[in-house]
């Protein structure tokens, strides 16, 4: 009850905070603080003269507000956005501002914003923030810093405002805006605003333009080592359809007698002429290397979102580094249903798989049995597996044991918040690799030095 009440106040407080950020300049905010402080101390006019400071600050702010109403100009703005960005990498887009008025415009500020719904109380109550460990108990109990971080994360980042010094009359200019996306998936842009300070430099008049846009943010990618993928080639039925080129790419093996049904173009005419009976060319059956990439999406209550994000990033790194002409890669995970996407040799392009991964979400319900069922149904098509797991708990250990019993060579990347983990279980076909969330790249780099790491 108390927390719910606090949450309602947070909403109000947050809105007030946003209003102050939009409407006041830094000096205007300082003037507001002076006014409030002087007002508090000046209540008793017999004890202090603070009421004089209050009246000066109050009247300056009132004057600034009135002046801000008088300075309305005609201008418009539009964005030119890229299709995708990447988590943690600067994303740049352009804004074009047209000055339609007869006067020049100076000291304009572009305020663009990422948009998300304000979380409801149940969502907020369930959310966790790794930074809470470092916060004061009061902050943890009250939860406002957590809410602000949550909002920031839901939005996908914060866009810094950009100053425009000068736009001539009936001219347009182009400004670049850069921001660093905090999360993968779609980030939404709602309204874009142009703010302009009034003559006193305390208050800002704001003109907002509603422009709904979205950008897909791809997962963060790591540099993967050249993994020596042990496994075995295997015959794939229907391979011809999966080959992108025809003719020369088929490898000649031997000649044999014609059998009904052999294509005419396979007849070796010289041998036919020499032997007097039809002889056909025999080609080697198509063998391919096909790997399965298993992404664990079950985020148990004790686990944290960064662990899942790192897991997605590592999976995406495998997809990105996959050489499409050499092999096939099956991405398998459980979302609201079982998903299996294949990349390489005429299937999905890497970009498409990365987009799918960008929108993959964690699941709080145990779906490891579904994941195993999905894997089991396709295990015969794979020659090696890469598993990205979120934990090394009993459920995952059972999962890996089952996998081990299938005899499929696999490497299990286990993402963990901890620096090191003890492996008490011995696997016959699986090589577990623990990757701490705060040291992912270094751990991956160290894999280069290990002789045969992957499946």
């Amino acid at each position, binding site marked *: 009850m108390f927390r719910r009440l606090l949450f309602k106040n947070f909403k109000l407080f947050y809105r007030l905070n946003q209003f102050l950020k939009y409407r006041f300049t830094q000096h205007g905010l300082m003037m507001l603080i002076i006014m409030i402080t002087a007002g508090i101390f000046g209540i008793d006019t017999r004890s*202090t003269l603070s009421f*004089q*400071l209050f009246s000066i600050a109050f*009247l300056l702010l009132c004057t600034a507000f009135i002046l801000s109403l008088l300075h309305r100009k005609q201008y418009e703005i539009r964005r030119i956005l890229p299709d995708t960005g990447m988590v943690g990498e600067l994303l740049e887009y352009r804004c074009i501002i047209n000055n339609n008025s007869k006067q020049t415009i100076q000291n304009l500020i572009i305020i663009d*914003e990422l948009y998300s719904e304000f979380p409801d109380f149940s969502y907020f109550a369930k959310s966790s923030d790794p930074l809470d460990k470092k916060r004061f108990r009061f902050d943890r109990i009250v939860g406002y*810093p957590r809410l602000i971080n949550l909002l920031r994360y839901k939005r996908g980042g914060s866009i810094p405002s950009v100053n425009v010094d000068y736009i001539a009359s009936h001219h347009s200019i182009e400004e670049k805006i850069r921001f660093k996306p905090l999360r993968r998936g779609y980030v939404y842009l709602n309204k874009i605003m142009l703010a302009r300070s009034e003559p006193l430099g305390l208050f800002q008049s704001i003109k907002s333009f509603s422009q709904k846009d979205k950008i897909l943010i791809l997962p963060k990618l790591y540099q993967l080592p050249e993994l020596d993928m042990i496994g075995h080639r295997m015959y794939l039925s229907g391979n011809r359809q999966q080959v992108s080129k025809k003719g020369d790419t088929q490898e000649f093996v031997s000649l044999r007698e014609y059998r009904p049904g052999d294509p005419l173009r396979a007849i070796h005419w010289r041998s036919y002429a020499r032997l007097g009976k039809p002889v056909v060319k025999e080609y080697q059956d198509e063998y391919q290397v096909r790997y399965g990439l298993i992404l664990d999406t079950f985020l148990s209550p004790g686990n944290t979102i960064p662990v899942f994000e790192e897991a997605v990033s590592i999976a995406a790194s495998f997809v990105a580094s996959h050489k499409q002409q050499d092999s096939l890669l099956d991405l398998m995970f459980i979302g609201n249903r079982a998903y299996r996407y294949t990349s390489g040799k005429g299937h999905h392009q890497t970009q498409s798989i990365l987009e799918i991964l960008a929108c993959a979400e964690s699941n709080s319900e145990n779906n490891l049995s579904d994941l195993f069922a999905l894997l089991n149904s396709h295990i015969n098509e794979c020659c090696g597996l890469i598993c990205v797991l979120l934990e090394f708990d009993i459920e995952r250990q059972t999962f890996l044991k089952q996998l081990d019993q299938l005899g499929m060579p696999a490497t299990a990347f286990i993402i963990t918040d901890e620096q090191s983990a003890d492996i008490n279980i011995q696997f016959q076909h699986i090589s577990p690799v623990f990757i701490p969330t705060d040291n992912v790249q270094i751990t991956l780099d160290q894999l280069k030095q290990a002789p045969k790491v992957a499946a």
Partner: protein
Amino acid sequence: MSDVVSSRKKLLPAPPLSILVALLIWGWQTDYLIFAIVMGILLEAYWIINFRINFSDKDINQIVDLSGLLFFLTIVYVFVNYGANGIYKILELLPFTLFLILLIQRYSPHNTIKTSALFLSIRRLGKDANDELLYEIDISMPYLFMCLISASSGHKENTLFFIACAVMFFWIGNTFRPKHIAFYKWALPVCIAFLLAFVTQTGIKRMHSATETFFMSLIDHYGWRSSDPDRKMTAIGQLGRLKLSDRILMRVHTKVENKQPVYLQELTYSKYEYGIWSNPATDFNPIQKTSNKKEWILNRTQTVLKSYDVGIYMQDQSAITAIPTNTQSLTGQDLVQIETNENGVIRIDAREGWINYRLKTTDELFYDGLPNEQDSYIYDKYKDTFKTLADELELDNKTHKEVITTIQRYFADNFYYSPSQNQRYPKGKYLEHFLFDNKRGHCEYFATATTLLLREAGIPARYTVGYVMSEYSDWEDGYLIRGRDAHSWVQYYLDGKWRILDTTPAVWAPMESADSTFLEPIYDFFSWLRYIITSEDIDASANDDFNFAWLLIPLALYLIWSFSRKERLSKQSIGSNASNNVEIYGTDSPFYELMYILEKKYDARRPAETLSQWIKRILPDANQLYEIIALHYRYRFSLNSNKQTARQELISKVNEQTMSIN
């Protein structure tokens, strides 16, 4: 919902000399002018002094923490000494407490302070703090305005202070005027705002006066308890439960055990009408103190019965105090003046806060004034009531001593103590209902009724208020007198003496104390702590005062010593990339000086040319330079080597090489 990152313009630094001027205004208003000049010069010398001290983040954090600690101690000290009014004293002292932070900012290379230094919550986040939380700010302008707000607590010159503030706002405001706005376009609205502000501040003051007058009149009519020697409003006729404060007002230490409660008289009143006791206006006259001693004799009787060491909390520098009616003398270093009026009320002048004095009692009352007409006066509206009661008790046929006994017995046998009054009666009928109907009430009903009944019986009597000393504290080894020990009783004049008569059932004190809050021991502990810290020994001489400000001297010496050990940077060398010098350790390698000399003397280093290649090109045989380069790389990039040792070695080798080149 949306978010905006504040990449807007940051707070500008205060213009040169503005901090000094703000501090001078503060010093002028608060009488800290000397300090203000010294502090102002130290802060403004920043513009002239050519070196900066390379404070690390840790140093700055420590200084901010130290300032926070000083601020906290100031709050404790001020609240202990000044009570609730201390808030204005804290406001007055703010420029002192935050001075160190601005000083360290001014003499640090960047002239800014990280938000992590100022806010512990951000500091705890460390590297995880995002850009919206962790950034660098210049606190000079907030400090400047804080000085002005602090100056307002001085309350010396109304109009001049307003003008000074307006000039400061104009001066500082001009610095954040948008560049494209012409000065006159900015100045005109600002001046209009100042004019309106002047009118507004006058209005605020008048509005405050009018509001205060209105509420004071309300309190005067409906409030309860005050120490006005001329007028006393009782709670007679008020509905609800009477609740008095548990706060400790006095502490009394005595070596003699008191078997009976001691009555400490504060005020006496003679005229009663509709719940208000009053006196004709009286003047206070000072009592002459004994020469060479801080002792005031109230009663010339030489016999001393008991001696009490009294600690009393002074809300103001002058207060009416409660003392036993048989007081012989008052002694104490804290006492400045003692006055009395014709009703025997004692007013003492002393400093604010807890003070101590010694009180001696004798067997005679110090007040021997004769009763006057007012002491026999009964308001017409009550005459019938008390006549009826006097007839019922047949007081006419009894001697005065018998009257006293009869009245005492009458109240003891027929009445009950009750702090509550739940029935509403017509104005002036409360005493009648108390006497004839419900026969229960609190001490004011008993004392008022007794006073008027005695007068009806022909005995001059006065309504008396004060405190009863009965609660003994083992912890403090003395008696405690709380707000709830306030009591009223009667003084009557018989056989040439004023005597005390208390007809309130004795159960009143336990009933009041039973209602105390469970937090009382905690309040008592803090009250005792405050008393121990702030009160001075009765027998201490005035010269024993210890000024705690002296404790700051070792602190200042430590800071000077600590700062002097820091590396100094010249202002010019800091440049715009000053932050990198501190952030990336090793970029201050002495090799760069040598490189500069070599480039001037021989040839500049080409793009993408390594240091070794460059040296090989310009000085192929200078083997020692390769050693210096290796040392430079070690200092610049190695994480494991001892940086300080490498630096020292590098400096000596670079110096040698520089000498040989020159």
